[in-house]
């Protein structure tokens, strides 16, 4: 049974429940849609004539744009599960309202129009929300395999919904069908909650970051300019636009002919229900039986021509025989090929478009082009039917004209596609994480084979990445050859790719178990397990092999399988093997050269499988003499996600060679390590290096708690830590758009930074005055070379501090109501050096900043140099006499060190008791400079 499921749907261990729930989710959604659509159509056509349909098309276009604008504003601010649940809840309430009005036979014109438009918007929102949700439930690789299965849920939902309508319309009446929808959608709400808790929540944070990065990549160009600048995109958008206009004309003709033939509301509802479902079945059959074959044997070109040609035939039929059967033929030929062959063809031609561009352009095409075309079709139909009084059959002439243009554009698009694909493989610009379609086109297969047969290792790896979820026997001879490739990386990749094929290359894979590379051995074993009827037995066999290298690879493979599939934990016990390895390590029976690798491997297995019993081994490895063992133990501790490790991991932040791994491990522990990290940030006894590293870890965790922790720590920390905290807050704001930043705290910090700037500005001015006094001879003795250098260092540091404060003000402003990216651009423009760009940026700031802050920032930015800056400052008590003392009693350690050094070299009097206290400071720079100052002072005396 397992093999059967895998063969058809490629659902792997641990994915079953998620895939099934998502299947039923879309199944119920589409079933509901296919119930309300016939209800809407029959209601409209029995209340009005088909001639009114163009008005409805126009209203749909306008309403869709408005709803999209409002919806996208909310969508970016609300957590996905809350957004979907609240939208679904609202839909249920609205459906109940519709049911009430329909049940009381309410037939006001506004209500019929409103219901028509509502169903169109409902269709767009629920399907787009579903696919958005699915993207968080599955990772990119899973999506490529499972979206086919889940898509089948949509098709079967369509079949059920339509037939159910056909059956129930006469039985319970059109109005009560709406209650069936309410029931289906309520079940969807339950599914959303289960799936969110089980899978989507953990992926959400990470994906939001990726999405943000994608948005940033294309932020410089608008979708329209991207389309206008690319031939490929121009043809693509034009084809989508024309196909939408033709689809609306077809819909109009079909509805008009049906309304002419039938007058009864329930009969009409049943008719639409029946044909919508039949359409889904035909679409499904075409998808299963023909789409793959058409793409494989005739290529993408043919797949794009089938839909327009079939609609052309249907339109000709209507032109000469405007009967109901001709209308059905037209609708079926349009609907069935659109959702199957044409959709696959369009997905394929969009493959060479870079993911970041596709992401932006797709939304534009789906929202703007689609609705604009719907609006245009409404207008065209209005003109033809109301102004020129043209009959239904002659409207086909318009379709025929449009189809000719469509066919021409298809030819151009195909040529562009082949060229773009070649370039994309050469440049490796197809984004592997976001491409989810199969490469089945004949021309594409030939290009891929050429790459696989070539010598360029990078290109081979890239092609293998693209083929990760493609199953085509033509590639097998090349995989057989590549499995013997000298590069281990290629071997590992081929093993991953052939996991799609049934029991292929088993002999060659078994031979790879003898490989010298641990990665190749582990990948080979992983492949053998995946194709074994009894993976536990296969793993156990490898775990008890004589060769310790195979045993080690088996151990890591077993741990990975246990992590992926919790049910394996009960069936497979790797404890005896770990104990055996531990004993062998103690008895030193392994070759010394292999000991490090065996320890690292052991640590990795314990971490991956989260084997609590063996956590003491990880603690032991933390103090191993070999750095690679320590690093492996740290990574494993992160994977194990155990709070007991967090304290040690924080300590490792103090050791430069371990810091990077410790940071990543702590971030992987996530929320569980936040409390300890917060303590480290606030604790005065913790070393500065740890404190500097902590904000970076917290920025990777990205929860609301982290924001609070960072704000709380801001006031009490030294400058370098403050800098890191502000940077971390900025990163959090960019990467996690749903986090909230308290405007009061942000404002407070902006004011603090402004004050810090002003203080440093005063220190700078006073310091310059003191130097002038030395130069003029007012102060004695004259400055030595060392003192001049010390004075200049202090001056430079004060300037840098002012610049940093300004930078942080911009960062804080980015956390407030102003958009971070705009401010970052303004900041870059101001400090970039180009005068005109700088002027525009200052102009921008003039318009967005609040008056108080504006006057300060603009004064600073417009000053040609800090020396020439004139600021009005209220009395701060900073004077020539006390400025150095004020710096020494502040919280900026580096500034203190520079000041102490200046005092040491210049002979200026200072508070010896205060400086004496600094000699034991834990910051070496301060202690050294303080000692030097006291030493020079005593010599002078």
């Amino acid at each position, binding site marked *: 049974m397992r093999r059967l499921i895998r063969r058809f749907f490629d659902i792997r261990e641990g994915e079953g429940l998620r895939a099934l729930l998502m299947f039923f989710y879309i199944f119920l959604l589409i079933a509901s849609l296919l119930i309300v659509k016939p209800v809407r159509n029959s209601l409209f056509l029995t209340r009005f004539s088909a001639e009114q349909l163009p008005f409805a098309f126009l209203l749909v276009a306008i309403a869709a744009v408005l709803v999209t604008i409002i919806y996208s504003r909310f969508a970016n601010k609300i957590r996905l599960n809350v957004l979907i649940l609240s939208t679904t809840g609202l839909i249920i309430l609205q459906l109940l309202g519709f049911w009430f009005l329909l049940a009381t036979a309410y037939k006001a014109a506004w209500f019929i129009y409103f219901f028509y438009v509502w169903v169109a918007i409902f269709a767009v929102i629920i399907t787009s929300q579903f696919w958005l949700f699915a993207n968080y439930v599955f990772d990119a690789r899973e999506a490529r395999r499972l979206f086919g299965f889940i898509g089948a849920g949509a098709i079967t939902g369509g079949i059920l919904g339509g037939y159910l309508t056909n059956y129930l319309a006469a039985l319970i009446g059109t109005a009560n069908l709406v209650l069936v929808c309410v029931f289906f959608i309520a079940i969807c709400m339950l599914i959303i909650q289960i799936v969110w808790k089980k899978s989507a929540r953990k992926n959400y944070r990470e994906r939001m970051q990726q999405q943000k990065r994608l948005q940033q990549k294309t932020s410089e160009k608008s979708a329209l300019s991207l389309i206008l600048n690319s031939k490929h995109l121009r043809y693509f958008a034009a084809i989508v636009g024309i196909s939408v206009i033709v689809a609306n004309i077809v819909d109009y003709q079909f509805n008009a002919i049906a309304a002419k033939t039938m007058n009864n509301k329930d009969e009409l509802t049943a008719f639409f229900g029946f044909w919508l479902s039949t359409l889904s079945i035909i679409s499904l059959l075409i998808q299963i039986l023909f789409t793959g074959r058409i793409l494989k044997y005739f290529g993408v070109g043919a797949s794009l021509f089938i839909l327009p040609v079939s609609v052309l035939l249907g339109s000709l039929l209507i032109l000469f025989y405007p009967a109901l059967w001709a209308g059905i033929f037209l609708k079926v030929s349009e609907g069935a090929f659109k959702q199957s062959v044409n959709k696959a063809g369009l997905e394929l031609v969009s493959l060479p478009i870079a993911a970041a561009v596709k992401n932006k352009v797709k939304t534009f095409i789906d929202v703007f082009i689609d609705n604009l075309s719907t609006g245009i079709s409404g207008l065209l139909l209005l003109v033809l039917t109301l102004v020129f009084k043209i009959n239904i059959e002659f409207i086909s002439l318009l379709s025929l004209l449009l189809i000719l243009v469509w066919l021409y554009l298809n030819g151009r698009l195909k040529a562009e596609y082949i060229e773009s694909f070649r370039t994309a493989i050469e440049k490796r610009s197809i984004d592997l994480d976001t491409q989810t379609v199969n490469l089945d086109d004949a021309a594409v297969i030939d290009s891929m084979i050429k790459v696989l047969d070539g010598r360029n290792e990078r290109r081979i790896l890239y092609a293998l990445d693209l083929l990760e979820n493609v199953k085509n026997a033509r590639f097998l001879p090349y995989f057989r050859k590549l499995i013997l490739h000298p590069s281990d990386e290629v071997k590992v990749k081929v093993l991953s790719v052939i996991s799609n094929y049934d029991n292929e290359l088993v002999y060659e894979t078994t031979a790879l178990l003898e490989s010298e590379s641990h990665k190749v051995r582990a990948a080979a074993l992983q492949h053998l397990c995946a194709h074994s009827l009894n993976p536990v037995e296969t793993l156990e066999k490898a775990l008890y092999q004589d060769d310790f290298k195979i045993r080690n690879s088996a151990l890591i493979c077993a741990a990975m399988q246990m992590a992926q599939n919790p049910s394996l934990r009960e069936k497979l016990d790797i404890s005896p093997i770990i104990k055996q390895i531990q004993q062998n390590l103690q008895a030193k029976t392994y070759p010394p050269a292999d000991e490090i690798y065996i320890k690292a491997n052991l640590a990795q297995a314990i971490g991956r499988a989260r084997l609590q019993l063996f956590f003491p081994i990880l603690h032991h490895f933390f103090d191993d003499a070999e750095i690679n063992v320590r690093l492996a133990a740290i990574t494993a501790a992160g994977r194990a996600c155990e709070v007991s490790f967090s304290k040690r991991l924080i300590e490792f932040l103090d050791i430069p060679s371990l810091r990077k791994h410790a940071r990543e491990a702590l971030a992987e522990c996530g929320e569980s390590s936040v409390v300890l990290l917060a303590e480290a940030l606030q604790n005065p006894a913790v070393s500065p290096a740890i404190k*500097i590293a902590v904000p970076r870890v917290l920025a990777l965790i990205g929860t609301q708690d982290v924001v609070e922790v960072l704000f709380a720590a801001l006031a009490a920390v030294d400058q370098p830590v403050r800098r890191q905290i502000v940077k971390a807050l900025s990163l959090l704001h960019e990467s996690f758009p749903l986090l909230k930043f308290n405007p009061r705290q942000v404002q407070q910090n902006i004011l603090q930074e402004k004050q810090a700037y002003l203080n440093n500005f005063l220190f700078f001015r006073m310091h310059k005055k003191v130097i002038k006094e030395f130069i003029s001879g007012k102060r004695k003795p004259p400055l030595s070379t060392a003192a001049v250098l*010390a004075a200049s260092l202090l001056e*430079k540091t004060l300037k*840098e501090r002012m610049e940093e404060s300004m930078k942080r003000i911009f960062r804080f402003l980015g956390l407030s109501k102003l958009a971070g990216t705009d401010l970052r651009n303004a900041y870059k423009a101001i400090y970039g050096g180009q005068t005109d760009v700088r002027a525009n940026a200052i102009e921008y700031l003039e318009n967005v900043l609040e008056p108080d802050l504006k006057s300060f920032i603009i004064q600073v930015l417009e000053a040609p140099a800090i020396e020439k800056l004139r600021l009005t400052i209220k009395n701060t008590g900073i004077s020539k006499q006390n400025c150095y003392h004020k710096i020494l009693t502040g919280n900026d350690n580096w500034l203190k*060190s520079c000041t102490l050094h200046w005092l040491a070299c210049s002979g200026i009097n200072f508070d010896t008791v205060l400086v004496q206290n600094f000699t034991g400071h834990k910051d070496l*720079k301060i202690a050294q400079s303080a000692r*030097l100052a006291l030493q020079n002072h005593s010599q002078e005396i």
Partner: protein
Amino acid sequence: MLTVVEKVIFLQDVDIFEFASSEDLSYIAMITEEIHLPENEKIYSLGDASDTMYLIISGKVRLHRNGEEVMIAQRKDVFGTWALFDDEPRVVTATCMQDCQLLRLEREDFFNLLADHSRITEGILKSMAKRLRALLTRTTN
């Protein structure tokens, strides 16, 4: 021995660090080791494994290969820079021409520092780009 601040004052004038802030220079200063070598002492020889860069605080160092002088490095000059960026053996021998006071910078410490202070990396890249640009302009002219 120099204090950290004194090392910073020295490092400010080293061209590879010209874009680093004074505080970032203090981090670099903390990982440098001050050494004193007598005249004629070999600092490293041709073909030696390379993992250290040197900065001259005082004295002169002769860089030579097979008896031929490649250059003479003096105060504020840096030598052995490539050691920070590749694993290739030394291509010259470095010998003290006078008593020398040097700062040594180990590759591993330097990379650990760069991993935590992206601003320093940014500054070094800027200065290297500036050098390359100057070199290109000179070659083109």
